[in-house]
């Protein structure tokens, strides 16, 4: 079990809009670790595998997304989520 954290700046134009939210949860679901997202380093944290909860965050462009993971593949999970955000969710 490892614990891993990282953050990434939301640089795509629409922020954490519906489709980016769904992509983020799809990526998160590929991992066994518990994965959570927050707009601030001290939370509140939400389940990164729930599109409903991720969309509720309504993170705009320019917000910083914090990730934390706990589980066997925590490091790789956080690395891939950060990469997805930095790639602008492959949409632009």
């Amino acid at each position: 079990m490892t614990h891993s954290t990282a953050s990434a700046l939301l640089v795509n134009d629409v922020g954490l809009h519906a489709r980016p939210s769904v992509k983020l949860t799809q990526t998160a679901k590929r991992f066994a670790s518990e994965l959570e997202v927050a707009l601030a380093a001290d939370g509140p944290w939400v389940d990164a595998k729930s599109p409903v909860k991720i969309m509720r965050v309504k993170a705009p462009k320019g917000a910083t997304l914090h990730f934390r993971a706990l589980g066997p593949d925590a490091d790789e999970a956080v690395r891939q989520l950060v990469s997805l955000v930095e790639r602008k969710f492959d949409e632009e």
Partner: protein
Amino acid sequence: MESKLTGRAASPGIFVGPAVVLSALAAHQRAQGSPAEEEGALIAAIATSRDEVSALASSANGEANRILGIQVALLEDDALSETARAAIASGVAADNAWRDAMAVEIAGYEHAEDEYFRARAADLVDVRDRVLRHLLGVQTVPEVAAGSVVVARDLPPSLFLGFDWSQGGAIVLGEGSATSHVAMLARARGVPMVVGIGSKVDTLSGTLAVDGEQGSVIAAPGATTLVEVQRRKAASSRAETEARSRLGEPAITRDGTRVAVMINVAAPSDVEKLDAASCDGIGLVRTEFLVANGALRDEERQFALYRGLVAWAAGRPVTIRTLDAGGDKPIPGYTVAGETNPFLGMRGVRLSLRHPDVFRIQLRALARAAALGHLKVMLPMVTTPAELAEARKILQEVVESLRAQHIPAASPPLGIMVEVPAAAIAVDHFDAAFFSIGSNDLVQYVTASSRDSGDTGGVGELTHPAVLRLIAAVAAHGTEIGREVSLCGDAGGDPRAIPALLDAGVRTLSVAPTLLARTKAAIRTVDLGDADATITTSSWWHRILATLRSPTGSVARKGLDT
């Protein structure tokens, strides 16, 4: 055969088109089973909906495929039904539990500042109604083609946002009100709308001629009527074009009285496409957008937003209202849940004084922005002079603490909304820097007519003499002590109400940016030449005020001040 129904005008314009009748999901109820049965029914309805949308998605491509894909992701997520399942466990029927839970979810998106998020409300409504149809076993929402006249008992704002208005269209409602959220959306979008037709709305079908100027609907219009409707439509669009061409000019009545016309801002993006020179400033900024924006407790983001508005206004006044939550604007964790009559409960400044931490953050950001331009701060729902005094004390503390920290700040003029009858009647007890009449709530409270639940028989009108007397008294008081009185309710942009407001002595109106041109045009048609008219409207009040100020009236005066 041609027939005419009369209701109330809620959004101007004239439109002829085919009726699309929406039967109300609200009219259907489920026979409630045990909590276990109800939960099973909800889970089954969600699963069926997910399968349907999945099938639709696989046969769609492009944007439709992406939208449906999002709906599938939502329907697959247990978190979507979490709140509803908790309500079911406590004994609520599945349909009501689902409706209530989704209403909260949808409101979160409707009030988002970002248009991308606002547009998601329509997806959630789609999801809600699809599941609800399975729960209730009814087929209720037909496809609404572009260019239709939408006919319904009532229409939630979210459904309005889901329809295609690109080919025009109109709305006819049995219930509803001209001050409802959906009516505001219709006016902003230029969709003609008539409300309060009554139960006869169920008889409408076929071709309808909707007159959003007069508030009437003609079913099966004959050839003569159609010619007349087209003539009026052409005249109305000529008037609109004429009004737009003079948008940049000041509003001056026939007799030469200058009337200031400001704008109401509901989201910072409202001013993006508008030239500040076409108005006299911002008469009302509704800061409730801060909630959807996540900035309620974020001084820096609020400061950035206020600073942006001050910069846009380029020296013109920017009047920012402190958070006006409660009533029809609940905020989880801030407003009081479960009030039986929220419009008469914890609203506006009452809540701000209950949550001084949140209030101070907003006042700090406002005082900092006030150092950069002509910013004014306005308190909503003020009822007693003590509330104004307490808010002023907090504002002074905030300004002093900013200065102690060497952060640039100014003490902005502190004014009040006059929307509670108590404040209007005893307006001379309030030492406010300015007064802004909130006519929507003032009408609601004076005439005991709810703003949102439609039919009160049309008694809730601004033109009721009681309402006009109060407005005239407030305007007269402002003139007497030399402080500005403005009006920022919907009536300010209503051509039928404008003559009465000017007659009552109001000289500053604040309206939605889309109504700026026609408001100015309406003002230009008014003749205030007969100056005695104003005195007639308010003479009764002058007598009352004079009595209150005389030694024999001191008992009535004392009440509030002690």
